[in-house]
């Protein structure tokens, strides 16, 4: 079952007499239980895309449907959306978790009793029962984020939109969020999450859509994306720091340089050319890599920039 469909979404803003194309052409389909990550650098159009799908920003072109209903035309579509938005509090700090869940449950179409029951179950599921009567402003950042998740799920939506869900969280809270996302997807809810954190996308997503300058540059199942680039990559780490001349030479032959010490070579035939350029610098490590998402992402974003 398709939980979310987006077709040719486009959004342009006028900013100080300049036209900014925030989103040029974004199309996406997400099935129930599927986790899709929108991966991209800052300003790529992730948040604008996700808010268009939630009905919070009106697209200039294209349409979006949640379980077959367009949220811009029919507000009943909102009964099937839950969202945790970045940069927002998402919950009321003066109320406690139980009160927040009951309030937002009603706001999303439940009766008070339904919201209360759902709230109690979610508090238990998210290990917040002990804090259910503590005003949210007194909770840790991680607990506040877990509550935001709970509030987004109180009405059992078909799709959960998460905008940078782990941003600003410590390691423990991030791990909690990752576990939650997997559990929520396993229960049948479709999830679209935006992130610029590659390891989050790699660990959580079934499918990754890399977005750059408002357009999806690639969209593949996660393991297929990694497989596409794997098996051929070499990593060379040198003892000292590369000088500008050597960096320019390496750049010319389309080889990735990271942090002035690490070189990634995705075309194995170039390896001896790279050694010639590096001579006589001391080499620390030479290894063959299974490409990870970092490299894929950097490569695709760099190609997008060209």
């Amino acid at each position, binding site marked *: 079952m398709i939980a979310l469909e987006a077709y040719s979404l486009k959004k342009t*803003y006028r900013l100080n007499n300049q036209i900014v194309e925030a989103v040029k052409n974004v199309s996406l389909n997400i099935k129930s239980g599927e986790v899709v990550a929108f991966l991209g650098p800052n300003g790529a159009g992730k948040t604008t895309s996700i808010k268009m799908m939630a009905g919070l*920003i009106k697209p200039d072109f294209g349409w979006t449907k949640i379980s077959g209903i367009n949220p811009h035309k029919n507000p009943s579509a909102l009964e099937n959306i839950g969202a945790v938005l970045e940069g927002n509090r998402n919950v009321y700090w*003066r109320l406690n978790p139980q*009160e927040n869940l009951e309030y937002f449950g*009603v706001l999303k179409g439940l009766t*008070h009793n339904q919201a209360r029951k759902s709230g109690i179950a979610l508090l238990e599921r998210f290990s917040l029962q002990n804090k259910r009567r503590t005003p949210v402003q007194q909770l840790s950042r991680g607990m506040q984020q877990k509550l935001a998740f709970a509030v987004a799920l109180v009405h059992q939506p078909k799709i959960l939109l998460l905008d940078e869900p782990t941003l600003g969280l410590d390691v423990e809270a991030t791990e909690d969020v990752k576990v939650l996302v997997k559990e929520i997807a396993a229960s049948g809810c479709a999830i679209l999450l935006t992130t610029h954190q590659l390891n989050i996308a790699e660990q959580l997503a079934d499918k990754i859509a890399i977005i750059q300058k408002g357009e999806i540059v690639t969209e593949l199942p996660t393991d297929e994306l990694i497989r596409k680039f794997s098996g051929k990559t070499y990593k060379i780490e040198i003892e000292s720091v590369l000088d500008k001349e050597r960096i320019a030479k390496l750049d010319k032959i389309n080889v990735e340089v990271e942090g002035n010490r690490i070189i990634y070579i995705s075309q194995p035939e170039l390896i001896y050319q790279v050694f010639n350029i590096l001579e006589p610098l001391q080499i620390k490590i030479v290894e063959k890599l299974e490409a990870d998402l970092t490299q894929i992402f950097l490569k695709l974003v760099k190609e997008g920039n060209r």
Partner: protein
Amino acid sequence: MLELFFAELRCSWIQFRRYPVESISQIIFTSAIFYGLFVGAGYVAGSSFQLGDRLDSLVVGYMLWVLVNFVMANIAGGLQSEAQTGTLEQLFLSRYGAVQVFLMRGLAYLTLEVLKIVIILFIIILLTGSSLYFPPLLILPFISVLLGAYGFAFIIGSISLLLKRVQQLIPLLLFPLLFLLTIPTETWTGTPKFLALLIPMTPGAGLLRSLMARGDSLDLITLTIAFINGIVYFYIGISFFKVAEKQAKKRGILSGY
């Protein structure tokens, strides 16, 4: 919609119980301002200071002004603070739609606001010696004023939604509002009287002053005009807000700049 109203009512009472200092300080501050003005006027006028019905009329006008302030703070001020703290977008994700949410919230908070006003009124009556009539029919012009107040608050709310900063706008409106609600437009004649009927809340406020300060009977024609005035401004306010919501979504500024 009833579920939404009760949810908002619960929230309003939770916050009142949990943070009573805010309401108490509002009551004290509002009573003190009027009493301060009253004592000041008495000092200026000297021993011949006798306001009679005029004091009662001013008290009614002042209380209506306080009510309108509460309504504006709740809707327009509330919108702005929700945008700043980051819960506004969650409200716009409600299947009820933002207009219904803010309307039900306004009505729910009204119960608390009316209670505060009754307490403030009681304090002012005690301090100034004012005496007012409280006929049950006063509820009718009161509703007409409320309709206009909500309409006005939604207009300011629309501006808040698009510009986000109405902190300077609200104080600027406070004094013209006080003027509108305290001057006895019901005693005017001719063209000024006709023009006064077009200003929001003025016909209803005039009726309330007549009923409560002077003990006059309810004039049905003026009541009809007051209701038309209230309904028209209410409709304008809601329409403005719906347009503002569409614009904010088009410009992508629902949550911030």
